[in-house]
């Protein structure tokens, strides 16, 4: 399609959705769970454009966010966009609920449940009638296909008696980026790599503990930094703590430490993906930094599997 034609398409998409949200919400109030990712950020700004101060954005710190993320989200949305932003630090509740849990689907479900509990408490106070969600096509496709539960499509609206508004549900990530750009969101957001709802909790395989999340958070930041430095533009680049210890030799001493897997994939929409042909020097640099900056890690692996047969995330 011609570029101008595509731009026009998004312009009218935004107009249509703004009108729809405005008409639906009317004089009522709406809430949105903002994660700082591309989807919820776009949905939030779209809704803000439609209903302004009648929108309340709730940002929950699960303890599974990326390095520097809470600060970034608060600064961008509260200070720069002027949204009604409510920040909730619920880290302890999430870690407590996940104690001893190792099954990936179980983990996702528990995170979803705690998230809803936390969100419910805030929603009741605000007394909103509408819930705006940044659900996009692959979310409900994968949930229906029982491949993975995406926590933003859980049983929330029924429980809270909220009417659901999902302005992005027919779009794919690349299309959401176009909309975000058209809405004037900063590049830092519309070009952000996708990040799963359950966050770093699904990047620590097996049981999730604050210590393990801290390790994967550092490793993840290193991967993102090095990819940016190398000017590569993958769909996603991240680190996973495999929860497998392996033997090493460090300064003439035997080591027995954690293993990190690095996953870097290219994709248009997340539905299919290929492991990226990342220059060897970049991979080596990532391995060097992770093992030297994170003392608990002794080995770094690169995942070369496509989707299918694997998914992009490990859990």
């Amino acid at each position, binding site marked *: 399609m011609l570029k101008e034609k595509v731009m026009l398409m998004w312009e009218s998409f935004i107009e249509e959705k703004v009108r729809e949200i405005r008409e639906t919400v009317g004089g009522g109030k709406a809430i949105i769970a903002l994660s700082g990712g591309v989807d919820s950020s776009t949905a939030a700004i779209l809704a803000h454009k439609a209903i302004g101060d009648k929108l309340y954005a709730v940002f929950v710190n699960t303890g599974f966010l990326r390095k520097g993320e809470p600060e970034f989200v608060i600064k961008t949305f509260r200070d720069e966009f002027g949204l009604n932003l409510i920040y909730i630090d619920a880290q302890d509740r999430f870690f407590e609920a996940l104690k001893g849990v190792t099954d990936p689907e179980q983990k996702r479900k528990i995170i979803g449940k705690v998230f809803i509990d936390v969100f419910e408490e805030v929603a009741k106070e605000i007394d909103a009638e509408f819930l705006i969600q940044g659900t996009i096509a692959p979310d409900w*496709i*994968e949930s229906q296909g029982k491949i993975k539960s995406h926590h933003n499509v859980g049983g929330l609206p029924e429980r809270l008696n909220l009417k659901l508004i999902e302005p992005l549900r*027919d779009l794919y990530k690349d299309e959401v980026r176009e909309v975000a750009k058209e809405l004037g969101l900063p590049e830092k957001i519309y070009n952000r790599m996708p990040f799963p709802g359950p966050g770093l909790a699904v990047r620590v395989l097996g049981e999730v503990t604050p210590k393990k999340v801290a390790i994967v958070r550092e490793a993840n930041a290193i991967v993102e930094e090095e990819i940016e430095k190398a000017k590569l533009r993958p769909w996603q680049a991240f680190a996973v703590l495999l929860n497998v210890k392996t033997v090493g030799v460090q300064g003439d001493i035997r080591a027995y430490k954690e293993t990190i897997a690095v996953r870097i994939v290219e*994709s248009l929409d997340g*539905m299919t993906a290929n492991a990226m042909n990342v220059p060897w020097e970049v991979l080596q640099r990532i391995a060097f930094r992770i093992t030297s900056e994170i003392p608990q890690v002794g080995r770094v692996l690169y995942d070369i599997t*496509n989707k*299918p*047969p694997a998914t992009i995330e490990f859990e």
Partner: protein
Amino acid sequence: MIIIMDNHGQYVHRIWRTLRYLGVESKIIPNTTPLEEIKAMKPKGIIFSGGPSLERTGNCEAILENYEDFNVPILGICLGHQLIAKYFGGKVGRGEKAEYSLVEVEILEENDIFKGLPKRLNVWESHMDEVKELPRDFELLARSEFCEVEAMKHKKLPIYGVQFHPEVAHTEKGSEIYRNFAGLCGEL
């Protein structure tokens, strides 16, 4: 308008999106939709999507049984392709090797569906089962190293099947295949 029979596959919505980008109107419907309702929509073409199981393909087979009532081009994707093969008397079973992600297929016969495409095409696949024996009334259009029947066509009717997924972004020139199909349906 082209009807997409939803067989619960992962890429059903991608088919819709690919057609939308070609400017072709389409509609995803539950595969359990009664034939009368489908007829009332006056589709110009029907696509059987991929999916996890032949047991859950609803009325797809009934559409083939009552083909004269519709009399429009049909395209089966992955499971849809296998369903067509099975209905017309071919054999479907577990492949010797599963095919996931990148596969190079060799196009043996351009026919209508592969018109203007190169002889060798990098496509994206996701299947364990495959068509093991071509139905008698069908001709082979494409094959790959691990799968003998990558694409086929009915000798007399505009009924097509492809084992791979032309609707995903990773399939080279995939939207050209949908463009050709939409053309066959008179929608372009």
